[in-house]
């Protein structure tokens, strides 16, 4: 069986498909008013099952509302909700295998617009109110969109990347440059000049960098998953990289064991503590010389699939996909590692977005 394997590698890795376009069936709607701070959780759902959902959690009251997109809009979110980003008072939910990005009101969860005609969108990064980048899986282009008009306006060609095996993922900005990790069957970080919308640099690292953040010292962090045994693209020990954004060079490598599965680098609000998943959840000062020997949250044999840190409280949220089949769980820990709360969300919770 390989379908589940693909989900595991990237729950929505295979995003090409039969499903040409969504058919949204509208039903009854529900009114929400979620003022104040909160946490969105995008639940990928099962690939090809169209059961992606959006959850919303209030850290203050510890109340969670599931399927808020469906309940607020009377229609399904789609197939494989990959990520969500807030910009200028709107939430942008990227639904990978439905080839769409929904813009929603983060207080009512109502749709206010959508960007379509995307190949296989993964993440959106805003440069202004009128310009954003959208990364893609199995596409060698990064789309340029105008969020104010919900339109694709152009694309950035990614060098040395075929359409069939193209992959661009998470984006962070340092000055006028946006850095992008290239994950599936890739091994690079790209540097994009946002003025010319061109790739002006690339840094080859290990096999399949999964995620990307920028710390308080101007250092990029990424962690590779190392591929997998038998992969035609190679198999090696996953590695955590610290990259100086200014010089775009690797400063330090923390190598793990072959067969480990690194993913999900995240930072706290101050940008001085790094977290990531490798079996359990690990935490490390961004200036540390070596990785701690003890995980911050031990590996309990379940599937930690998503990670975020409350930028204000410093609480850590860990998404547990359990078995990729049933409703996932989110664990909330204090920055000291004390379990504060746990709540069920949708199937395969993968990404978070703070409001």
């Amino acid at each position, binding site marked *: 069986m*390989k*379908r589940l394997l693909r989900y595991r590698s990237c729950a929505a890795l295979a995003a090409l498909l*039969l499903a040409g376009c969504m058919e949204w069936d509208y039903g009854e709607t529900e009114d929400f008013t979620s003022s104040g701070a909160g946490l969105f959780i995008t639940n990928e759902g099962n690939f090809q099952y*169209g059961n992606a959902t959006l959850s919303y959690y209030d850290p203050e009251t510890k109340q969670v509302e599931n399927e808020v997109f469906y309940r607020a809009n009377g229609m399904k979110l789609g197939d494989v909700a990959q990520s969500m980003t807030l910009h200028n008072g709107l939430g942008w939910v990227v639904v990978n295998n439905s080839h769409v990005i929904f813009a929603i009101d983060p207080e009512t969860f109502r749709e206010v617009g959508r960007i379509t005609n995307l190949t296989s969108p993964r993440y959106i990064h805003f440069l202004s109110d009128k310009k954003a980048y959208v990364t893609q899986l199995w596409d060698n282009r990064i789309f340029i969109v105008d969020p104010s008009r919900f339109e694709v306006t152009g694309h950035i060609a990614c060098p040395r990347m075929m359409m069939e095996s193209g992959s661009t993922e998470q984006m962070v900005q340092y000055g006028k440059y946006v850095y992008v990790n290239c994950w599936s069957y890739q091994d690079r970080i790209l540097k994009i000049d946002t003025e010319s919308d061109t790739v002006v640099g690339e840094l080859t690292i290990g096999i399949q960098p999964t995620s990307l953040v920028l710390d308080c010292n101007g250092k990029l962090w990424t962690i590779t998953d190392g591929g997998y045994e038998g992969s035609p693209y190679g198999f090696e020990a996953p590695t955590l990289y610290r990259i100086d954004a200014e010089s775009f060079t690797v400063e330090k490598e923390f190598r793990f064991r072959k067969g480990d599965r690194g993913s999900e680098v995240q930072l706290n609000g101050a940008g001085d503590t790094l977290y990531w998943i490798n079996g359990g959840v690990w935490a490390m000062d961004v200036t540390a010389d070596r990785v701690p*020997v003890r995980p911050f949250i031990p590996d309990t044999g379940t599937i930690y699939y998503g990670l975020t840190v409350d930028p204000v409280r410093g609480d850590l949220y860990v998404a547990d996909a359990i*078995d990729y089949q049933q409703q996932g769980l989110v664990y909330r820990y204090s920055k000291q590692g004390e379990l504060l709360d746990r709540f069920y969300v949708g199937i395969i919770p993968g990404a978070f977005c703070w409001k």
Partner: protein
Amino acid sequence: MMHTSFRPQWLAAAFAAAAPAFSSRKFRLFRALPAALLLLLAACNKDGEITEEIPETPIIELDSETGVYTAKVGREVTIAPAYRYAEEAAFSWTAGGVLLSDQPTLRYTWETPGDVYLLLRVENKNGFAEEELKVEVLALTPPVISLVLPPEGLKVEAGTEYTFAPDFAHDDVEGFRVEWLRDGKVVGTERTYVFRESTPGRCLLTIRASNIDGTAEREVPVEVVEAMPRTVGFPALSYFQPSTDRSTLVGRGIDLKPFTTGFDRPQYSWTVDGAPVSCTDRTFRFTPAAPGSYRVAVTVTEGASAPQALTKHLTRGAEALTAKVVVRAAAKSEAELLRAKEAGSSKVQNKVYEYVPAPGQFIGETRTGGFTGAETTHARAVEWALQRLAGQQFVSLGGFGGYLIVGFDHSIVNRGGAGYDFAVQGNAFLSTKGGSNEAGIVWVMQDTNGNGLPDDEWYELKGSETGREGTLQEYAVTYYRPAGARMDVPWTDSEGGKGSIDYLKTFHDQDFYYPAWIEAESYTLRGTRLPAQNRLDPATGYWANDPYGWGYADNVGSDDLGGADAATGDGQCCGFRIANAIRPDGTPIELQYIDFVKVQVGVNAKSGPLGEVSTEVFSFRDLSM
């Protein structure tokens, strides 16, 4: 983590440069001075720059870049960090608050495997430094010998060479070596051994493998015979229906076909209740003319061996073996045995009768396979599978031949081929790269004896590959329990092939892929094998399992009922027509309805790191409801 006072980099550099000028004795003296005096003495003025020496706390420099050490049970491990400013420091090595050593170097032996976190603390009067270390205490890994043998014991022909080539686990551990002993005497030291014996009899072959962690032995009784024995028998209906008795209706022919071994030119003769019948084929279609039980016997004679005169008065005849089977014809008609649906009937399966997967990466897997770990008996496994299907959660059938038998609370009626009669939900999908289709052959059965059990006749539903070149009926694969945990599952097949269900440690790390509820050391699964359609796309490196035309579960063919897309949110489903039921010879069999459905993995292939091609089923549904 180190706790120490701030020490400017320039001071460290200056200190290092001056180090050769200090003797250790002088240095100790320097460190022993009172703090105030020390500060005074340390102050200097060079080139107009005023510096100040700060009392130094210890510094630990581990002899491991990661702080992680490995040890083996019962073997002493030595951890020897380097220290600075630790001449008069106190040392402590603790684990869980228990002091293990107060020496600079730790020498310790653990007796149980597991991860141990150590806290090393070095303290002097100026402060302390601490480092947390991890010691991974590993269990000993003596060799494991894996040698697949026939379940009935090993017989070899006199005068013939046999090469033994077992697999060895942990052969990468230091000191690995192999010895072959025959009746206690060493006869070989290579990884393989060629056995040849010209005299019939018995001997004991022993394989002894050792490394620094221990020794493993495997004894192999060998029976040397002049010629391989012949056997004749009838196959059981299924793994958990060991009876060879057969059931049918009056007037419905039933195909009887024995299996044989050891015959070069088998010749068949048949009797019914002792009376010879005219059939001399291997398959005899017996059609009961009236209700009742019939004893059908087949005698198989070796056609290659003519009668042989041993003496003038004694002649040895050709060897003949007989096997018998009971055929029962029901007293009721097909219509009388129909279990009509009622108002409260369920449109989905209500019972799982057998769950006999082939070994596979999801078998017994508690993390993503949904198993609980309690499925150690067939009853538990069946209960688990029924629960999974009720929740429309996948049930993996493992590699080739693995199957699941379900029933309904009513008969599913044959609607004459106008539409699909029932559906099987899978998780196949298409893509421009071929997608994932892991075809399962669908079989149906009518409860002709009315006992509510699937112990009647299975009929395959034909599909697009039926009768095509490459499709193989009566294909059989025998799976062998691995010799140890975390090992591949070896198999042999009826075509003389062999292979393995690979252990995919990275993704599914349960100890065994061999079903825990299969008690035998090996088991054989028989069915129809389709030509594999998995491929590696050279352009992208992705594995794809291309779909078959129609007629298979977990396959997006022309009989796909939808689902498997983002629009509906339903799972992928295939529709099946009872009218497609065929006899073993491919001719149609007319069934007014069916009571049981079996899905069996129809492909024996693996897709690189994705592992074995394995049908998954999620639910079964009567489409007339």
